[in-house]
């Protein structure tokens, strides 16, 4: 037995010295990627298992037992059935979708419009460009506070409106359910239009100028050039820009939470705010784990589907 093990081991050693030793690179590559692999594993595998485990129990940090003993509070998937009937969850999801459907197209169109203005050189371009990029570099929590101040009923937004209308305007932006959502979306559009502008401009600059000139000579007007040359060339870039904003907008939390705290009532409660509140105020972590897992699963399916679609469209030469 031990002799057999010894020969197997020897064989293995042989194989290793033969195949790996000359390839110093593979070994170094493995070592270099190891820390990143460990970090990824540390934040994905174990936490996901833990999340799965807790999600089928009533466990909460106040329940007096360690999370590993959560099985004592097994509730036979009640969290998941509760989730299906949780109207607050579904309305938060719906609100997140509304915010996304308003903000992302608005940011895209504004960003694209700005990018077309910046496509060729003009005096002052660089300084205008730097200033227009500033909002996306402002810490989101600080941006939230800026807009919190701006939308106070005695604040500057109403002041500007008053001057335009001629009579004092005192709209309570942040305490009206509908207006609060609009205010929150305005803040998001202010902060992230620059990102669309930045990415789309980078794509626009890459459109070959000789093609544009040729089209002009053939009598194409600006709009025709834009739709037949510029847009097709920018297809991939537009998809990337939209994908980034959709992903980030789905997570919307910082600005919104500082502006309204999800209120008034639940009027601006998006999915991240809802989970945050259940986590910190209601403290039912078993339920939170179930919500979080459900979201992760749905997002993964969407992501896999989207990547397959992208891979397919890449096979077809543009």
């Amino acid at each position: 037995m031990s002799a057999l093990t010894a020969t197997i081991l020897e064989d293995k050693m042989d194989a290793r010295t033969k195949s790996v030793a000359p390839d110093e690179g593979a070994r170094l590559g493995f070592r270099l990627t190891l820390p990143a692999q460990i970090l990824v594993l540390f934040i994905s595998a174990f936490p996901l298992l833990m999340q799965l485990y807790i999600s089928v129990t009533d466990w909460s940090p106040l329940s007096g037992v360690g999370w590993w003993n959560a099985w004592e509070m097994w509730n036979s998937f009640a969290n998941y059935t509760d989730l299906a009937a949780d109207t607050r969850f579904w309305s938060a999801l719906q609100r997140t979708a509304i915010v996304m459907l308003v903000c992302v197209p608005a940011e895209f169109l504004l960003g694209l419009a700005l990018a077309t203005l910046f496509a060729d050189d003009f005096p002052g371009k660089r300084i205008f460009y730097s200033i227009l990029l500033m909002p996306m570099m402002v810490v989101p929590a600080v941006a939230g506070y800026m807009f919190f101040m701006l939308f106070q009923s005695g604040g500057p937004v109403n002041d500007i409106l008053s001057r335009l209308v001629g009579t004092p305007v005192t709209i309570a932006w942040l305490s009206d359910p509908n207006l609060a959502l609009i205010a929150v979306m305005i803040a998001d559009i202010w902060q992230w239009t620059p990102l669309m502008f930045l990415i789309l401009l980078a794509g626009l600059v890459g459109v070959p100028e000789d093609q544009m000139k040729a089209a002009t000579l053939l009598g194409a007007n600006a709009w025709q050039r834009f739709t037949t040359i510029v847009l097709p060339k920018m297809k991939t870039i537009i998809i990337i820009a939209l994908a980034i904003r959709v992903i980030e907008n789905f997570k919307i939390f910082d600005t919104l939470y500082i502006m309204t705290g999800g209120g008034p009532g639940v009027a601006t409660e998006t999915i991240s705010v809802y989970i945050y509140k259940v986590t910190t105020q209601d403290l039912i972590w078993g339920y939170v784990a179930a919500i979080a897992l459900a979201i992760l699963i749905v997002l993964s399916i969407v992501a896999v589907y989207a990547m397959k679609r992208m891979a397919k469209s890449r096979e077809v030469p543009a």
Partner: protein
Amino acid sequence: MKRSVPFEIFRYAAILAAMAVTLVPILWMVSMAFKPIGEWSATGADLTWWPKHPTLANFQFVFGHSTNDLIVALDHTAVKPILSSLLSAVFGTVIAMSAGTAAAYGLSRFGSGQNLPLALIQLRLFPPMAVMIPVMIMWAFLNLNDTWWGLALIYGIVTLPFAFWLMKTFFDDMPREIEEAALVEGCSRLRVFTRITLPMMRAPLASAALFVFILNWSDYLIALLLTTREWVTIPVYMASLSSSMTGQLYGAKAALGLIAAVPPVIMGIAIQRHLVRGLTFGALKQ
């Protein structure tokens, strides 16, 4: 391409309008930071766009407990939150950049870790809120709650995708002739990486590090969940600044907001050239 005069007029008008929308919120906060308490929430005809009596009292207040203007005093000044933000963001950047750069080089040159590009994009896809329960439990178990080093660790992981992808595209773009020459000279591959590649990549490394630092410095949600008292960061501390006596401490918060906003804006302008690459995970270069 030649543009007509009306177009130029339209262009400048549109850009100036965009500039106004961009700058008004920022300038309002800057102005608020220098307003004395009497002007903080003045409304109607009294509303001032620029402080009538500019003062540094707001800054004195957040750094030194109290000023003569304000009856309230802070039980803890902004010094430690600033330190906390700095330490966690800097060390988070160190973690993300070390692991990310090494892995990017390993993949770019030796094809190791083929799973990493996708795994890291997935990491970025998920809302942090959806994985925070296990993280909070793990951090409590490891005694990392409410410490700057605990924050630094999670920041390092959260921004690892950006560090990795940025450095991967930089390594992919780099010409390999010099590395190959050094190999022929008898240098080991590790030595080539540490003595030749890394020094050559100093500028891209610095840009990537600044980019990652901005992301770490901008966090609010994670710090809100993982810090409670000792090591709260600037945004968490700022949000907690309001008192039952004076309500919102507008000016003090604006002063802090200004302190938090200045470093990333300056850094962002400094690395403008690489922003597109960083934000699109290297899919796009400028």
